[in-house]
């Protein structure tokens, strides 16, 4: 492990933690503008988190340790994922700890704990939200794995830094299979981040909410951590998408300190573009009924499989 690698790892983690709430604020701003409303300030999620951290936590009487631990576990899982996904540099000491498959497992770990904690209290909303979350999750996970496998087929490795190195730093080539994987990944990340065709992040209407239903019993610092973790999840998914489909600008393995610093504004520009695209998709589409979700995610899975098939056919 080089000193530069260690520093770039730290910088990347810090930037992920700092930028994630701003990314959520940016998406909310774009959504507001697109629907002709006046937008909340960019730092609104930060204010929310600060407000929540200053409050006293109220925990249900029959809550077990699971309920108290879950916010920390979920947040830690998302922060670890942010350290693994190469967003600034590919020389990441942490990234050797987990490849793309373990990354999907990390997301699954967070999801399982969130669902268990939601059921722990025993309210109807919590268990309903948990059931729906697991339902969406088990459909989205194979599709996400297939997308990552398509990218792995190209680079011959399931390690994300190697994939980025192959895609960004070798001779430029068009990979048609990534077109399929890109569409599939967009659909999966909409579902995984509780975005509009599957879930509405702004709703608290009992019949439609999925992710919010699981957080209903949380308050104060626990809620703040979970909100921050879901912002980090959006950030991580954006970074996986950027790493797979627009990997240009990420500093190369043996890059020096300056190149890593230079990668930061590129990342911010790419994230701003991705956030706007997300807001556009959310504004243009209507929420699906929950029973249409298998069709939506099934399509994502089939597209990812198709990407693999095209990869085998065209050899690219």
């Amino acid at each position, binding site marked *: 492990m080089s000193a530069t690698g260690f520093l770039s790892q730290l910088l990347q983690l810090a930037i992920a933690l700092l930028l994630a709430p701003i990314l959520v604020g940016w998406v909310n701003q774009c959504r507001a503008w697109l629907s002709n409303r006046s937008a909340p300030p960019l730092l609104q999620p930060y204010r929310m988190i600060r407000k929540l951290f200053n409050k006293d936590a109220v925990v249900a009487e029959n809550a077990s340790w699971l309920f108290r631990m879950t916010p920390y576990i979920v947040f830690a899982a998302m922060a670890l994922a942010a350290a693994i996904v190469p967003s600034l540099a590919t020389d990441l000491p942490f990234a050797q700890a987990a490849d793309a498959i373990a990354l999907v497992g990390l997301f699954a770990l967070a999801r399982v704990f969130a669902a268990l904690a939601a059921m722990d209290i025993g309210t109807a909303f919590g268990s309903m939200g948990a059931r729906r979350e697991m339902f969406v999750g088990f459909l989205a996970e194979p599709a996400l794995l297939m997308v990552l496998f398509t990218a792995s087929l190209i680079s011959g490795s399931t390690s994300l830094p190697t994939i980025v190195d192959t895609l960004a730093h*070798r*001779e430029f*080539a*068009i*990979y*048609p*299979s990534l*077109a*399929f994987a890109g*569409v599939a990944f967009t659909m999966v990340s909409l579902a995984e981040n509780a975005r509009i065709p599957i879930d509405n992040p702004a709703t608290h209407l009992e019949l439609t909410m999925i992710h919010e239903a699981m957080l209903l019993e949380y308050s104060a610092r626990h809620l703040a951590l979970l909100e921050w973790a879901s912002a980090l999840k959006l950030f991580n998914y954006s970074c996986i998408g950027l790493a797979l489909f627009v990997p240009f600008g990420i500093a190369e393995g043996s890059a020096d300190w300056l190149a890593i610093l230079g990668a930061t504004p590129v990342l911010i520009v790419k994230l701003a573009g991705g956030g706007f695209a997300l807001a556009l998709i959310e504004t243009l589409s209507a929420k699906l009924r929950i029973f249409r979700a*298998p*069709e939506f995610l*099934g*399509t994502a899975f*089939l*597209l990812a*499989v*198709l990407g693999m*098939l*095209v990869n*085998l*056919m*065209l*050899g*690219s």
Partner: protein
Amino acid sequence: MPMNIPLWAQLINLLAAVLLLLAFAMLAQRRVLTLINLFAAQGFALACSTAIVAFATHQPHLYWSVGLTLVLKVLVLPWLLHRLIVRLDVKWDVEGLINIPTTMLLGIVLVVFAFNLALPISQLANTVTRATLGIAMASVMLAFLMMITRRKAIPQVIGFLAMENGLFFAATSATYGMPMVVELGIGLDVLVAMLILGVFFFQIREQFDSLDLQHLEKLKE
């Protein structure tokens, strides 16, 4: 690996993938209006790939088929179909009773079949873009599948037209284009078929008050 094939061939591979993607989107689409727009997009992708082949292999006669594709498949036929669905008042028609996920699974099986079928054939060919033959065959078969699984008349006709798109793509990308006469003939065929089918739509609806082709399976009232 694509490192050793030229950029234009990579672009054609990409357009082939887009063509297949659009074929799948058409298979999954419920609304007639979106189906027509997807068909026009597929025509546009086809025109682009033909133009690239024409430019890269220096075959000026292919530009004629580019123009033909653009005029016929991107402008005239979608416009005709748009006018038809407005006049038949089926613009927002949603087809029920088909299980889209099953159809798409069948589509994947067809793609695997087509790829397997095309692999030995494309190894015999000596063009750079021979690998796209499998994709072209897959999109022909997906269009077939669409014709089989749809119950209403207009999606079936769009399936027919999409099948022609796939054939045309096979011809241009795998063999660098058919003779001009053949292309003109096919183009005219499609146009005439579309006009005749347009008349058929009205006749079918006059007879049965619907465009559901299952009515045609009954021989007598």
